[in-house]
């Protein structure tokens, strides 16, 4: 048994029979349980070490070779796999109540397998191609077969696809930089091309216009899954680049570029959110700001940066999960999700409203919620570098909070005489409730996942050392 077989090929292979299951609930439970099992195995069974259970000895080999390329999952990747598949399990368990299980579970399994492969592949430049295949598969995930793609989907595809050639080209140039490190012009060219590639993949300013457009067109739950998984893997892919090329990692301008890029995303995402009147688009702007937070985390001092980037993953996923699930529930009540259509819904659907607002607050960094500790750490790190940067960070946060507060005001403004009632479906209500509890738990005790997270910096040889 090898690690790539277990965490890449098996989930991808099981996606095919999953396509044949027509019962959404069974599909959701089977897919969620499979992901949970893979997560637990990653947590319990170490890669490349013999595990003795009675007379049995179990050892998972770290690599596999295919078509002349190698897929390698090192022992240090185990924690990431555990976290990743654990979070995927949460998304799959929630898929049935959002009526997206038929698309999300099978396609989600293939996408996750491809993205894990993108972390594992050697030569690592092939990751760009694997990410591109995942992007292509995301289209049927976002749209039912009978629905024509809108401009948002088209732009998503175009912008994400444009990232791939830039990264491949940059990879080719980087080999030249490695062989002649004194060639400054080549280094600048390759860094610029690489930056462009990541700007497309991460939907950096101003290449993020497709996010709010897409949010208006497709299912919020499938979109939330994509909004979580694509940037997270792209960021880890980017960290791989930094780890590999020391000249890039030690470049004096890198921190500044990341800091400016991240700030622009946080500020523009926050400000756009503050003036937005469409609930799905607000989620998109929050995701833009969230990617900005990741870039800002990169820009911190090396000993903090890796920890900060990884600390963002779980709160981000949980908040998006709760947000997307709440939005899906709300979409069943009001279409389109404009303020004028959803006004006063809180009185009849308090749990959905609470999920929506608290998830938004969490991403904005409201104290007590999951997003707060890492925002605080980030903000403190930036303040210790420059108060000006910390001020712009505050502006972005204020924008997000304004958006959340406006949404709250609209949702509670019901006509006079409207009493509070629970008119919600109980299963989504329970799942949202559990998610909200999780947001509070992570907000008060952010260290609860520390035992797993502590190993993550080990994925990189140089980064964070």
């Amino acid at each position, binding site marked *: 048994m090898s690690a790539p077989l277990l965490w890449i090929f098996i989930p991808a292979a099981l996606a095919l029979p999953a396509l044949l299951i027509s019962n959404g609930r069974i599909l959701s439970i089977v897919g969620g349980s499979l992901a949970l099992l893979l997560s637990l195995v990653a947590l319990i069974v170490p890669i490349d070490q013999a595990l003795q259970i009675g007379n049995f000895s179990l050892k998972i080999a770290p690599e596999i070779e295919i078509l002349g390329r190698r897929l390698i999952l090192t022992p240090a990747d185990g924690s990431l796999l555990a976290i990743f598949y654990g979070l995927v399990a949460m998304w799959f368990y929630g898929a049935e109540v959002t009526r997206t299980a038929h698309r999300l579970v099978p396609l989600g399994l293939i996408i996750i397998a491809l993205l894990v492969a993108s972390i594992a592949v050697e030569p690592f430049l092939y990751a760009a191609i694997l990410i591109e295949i995942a992007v292509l598969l995301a289209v049927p995930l976002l749209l039912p077969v009978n629905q024509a793609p809108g401009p948002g989907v088209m732009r998503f595809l175009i912008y994400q696809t444009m990232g791939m050639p830039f990264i491949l080209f940059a990879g080719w140039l980087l080999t030249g930089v490695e062989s002649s490190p004194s060639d400054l012009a080549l280094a600048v060219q390759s860094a610029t091309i690489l930056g462009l590639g990541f700007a497309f993949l991460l939907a950096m300013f101003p290449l993020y216009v497709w996010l709010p457009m897409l949010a208006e067109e497709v299912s919020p739950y499938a979109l939330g899954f994509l909004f979580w998984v694509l940037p997270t893997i792209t960021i880890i892919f980017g960290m791989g680049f930094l780890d590999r090329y020391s000249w890039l990692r030690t470049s004096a301008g890198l921190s500044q570029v990341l800091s400016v890029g991240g700030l622009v995303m946080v500020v523009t995402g926050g400000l756009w959110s503050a*003036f937005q009147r469409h609930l799905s688009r607000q989620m998109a702007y929050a995701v833009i700001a969230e990617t900005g937070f990741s870039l800002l985390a990169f820009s911190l001092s090396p000993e903090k940066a890796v920890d900060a980037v990884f600390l963002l993953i779980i709160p981000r996923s949980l908040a998006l999960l709760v947000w997307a699930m709440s939005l899906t529930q709300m979409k069943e009540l009001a279409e389109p999700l404009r303020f004028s259509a959803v006004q006063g819904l809180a009185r009849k659907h308090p749990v959905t409203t609470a999920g929506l607002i608290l998830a938004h607050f969490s991403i904005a960094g409201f*104290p007590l919620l999951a997003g707060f500790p890492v925002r605080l750490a980030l903000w403190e790190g930036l303040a210790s570098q420059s108060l000006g940067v910390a001020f712009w960070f505050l502006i972005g946060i204020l924008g997000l909070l304004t958006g959340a507060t406006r949404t709250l*005001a609209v949702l509670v403004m019901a006509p006079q005489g409207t009493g509070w009632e629970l008119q919600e479906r109980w299963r989504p209500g329970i799942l949202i409730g559990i998610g909200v509890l999780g947001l509070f738990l992570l907000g008060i005790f952010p260290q609860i996942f520390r035992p797993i997270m502590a190993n993550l910096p080990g994925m990189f040889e140089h980064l964070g050392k």
Partner: protein
Amino acid sequence: MLIILTVLLLLLVALALIVLYWVRPGIRYSWMLAASGALVSWFSVLFWQLNLPLTFQLPPWEPASLFFESLSFTADRLTWPLALSISTLTLAVILTATARKNFPDPLPWAATLVLGGLGLLAVLADNPLTLLMAWSAIDLTELVTQLRSADGPQPSEKVVTAFATRLAGVGMLLWASMVSISAGTPMNFQDAPPQAGLYLLLAAGLRLGVLPLHLPYASEAAIRRGFGSALRLISAASSLILLARIPTASVISIFTPFLLLLAALAAIYGGWMWLRAPDELTARPFWLIGLASLAMASALRGNPVGAVAWSCALVLSGGALFLSSAHNVWLSRALWIGMWGITALPFSISATGWGSTMPSFWPVWPFLLLAQALLLAGYLRHAIRPTLRDNFETLDRAAQYVYPLGIGVLLGIMLLLGFGGWEGASRLGVWLLALLGVMLGGIASWLAPRLRILTPLRAHWVRPTASSWMDWLFRGLWGLYRLIGLLSNSFSKMLEGDGGFMWTLLFMVLFISLIIQGSPGP
């Protein structure tokens, strides 16, 4: 550990009340359960005094490389009186609930116990991180309870607006931390740098409605006497504790006299409206503004003990008056003791209120004394004019015993704290100023029924909303918001339109050229 046990007790009893309400709505012993929980926690806080200082720390946040602080709580001789005031108020609310028309109603009792527990956590917070977590918890509790009682779009919107205002206070506290970190000192309450001190004051001021002067509690009249009083007073106390925690050296700034003047003017406004309001419930926001301004003025004069003194008086004297819902001659006379709490005379709880540890801006003194006089005169008037009160004799027998206990425990603790248990006890204070304030208060009381300008306004004339210049300010801000919104929407449409891709590439080229110009290269 005692700290967290006391808080957990309150929270668990509240949870039990809620569960009982849902599972067995008609259960008869819910009041007994609430009163027992409140009483045990009150005794617990009372006996902390024998063992001060008490500390409790939650497991530290990790990784340690990212977090400077962890959640921790301290009860010392400065914070204990405020903790005792809050637990006394919690107990008093439950005891006096027997005299309310809606008795028995366990949900407001549960909410009161939750607020009491969160209020204790806030006043015992040992660092800004803990304080802002406690503030946020109180704000969320308040938001939920207020929304539950708000009816119609406008009241609901006002609740959210009030929540946003308090959130601004939380933001200001966070910003103070950032300023402190940028000055090279991770902020704590022991040594905040001078740059951060004023932001801390603004944070407290914003939450209290003092700086800038505004009334965050616009829907005051709609809130019931018992739970409403707990909500207002505990929320205010949790904000006021910040004033006691600001290191004296941190408030020295060129802006201090200006802030002192603003605080004094806010105090006069609060006192004036408090005196002229038709009844004590309508006047409650002005009581908070008036006393909170005096506390803030103490902090600005480098007197954190004085800030705590005014804060305790706000909770205990105010609590006794606001919880009085049944009229009886003896109880009305007992309320005069409440007035003693804000006299600042020797051995009163506010004896240290006029102290200063640094040269203060002398022109504000007449304003501060006038504010105190107005508050005293108003208290006397509200205590002896039982506009909103029922007849004590109509209460049932048990309530006739329990209800006065609720008022009595507030007044008793207030007297007790004047004599012992904390740093501001058994002090003579600046008795000359206090005497002057009391004399002015006496004159104002004498003049009140004789001068038309001092006679109570009709209820609908006491505007619980902001003044006209504040309206103008909010209209201006709203106009600016709409303008920026229009611009941002136009920009979005341009990028998302047919030519959006070209625009995007153009902006990207501009952005890259800007970054490349600013970066030193590899």
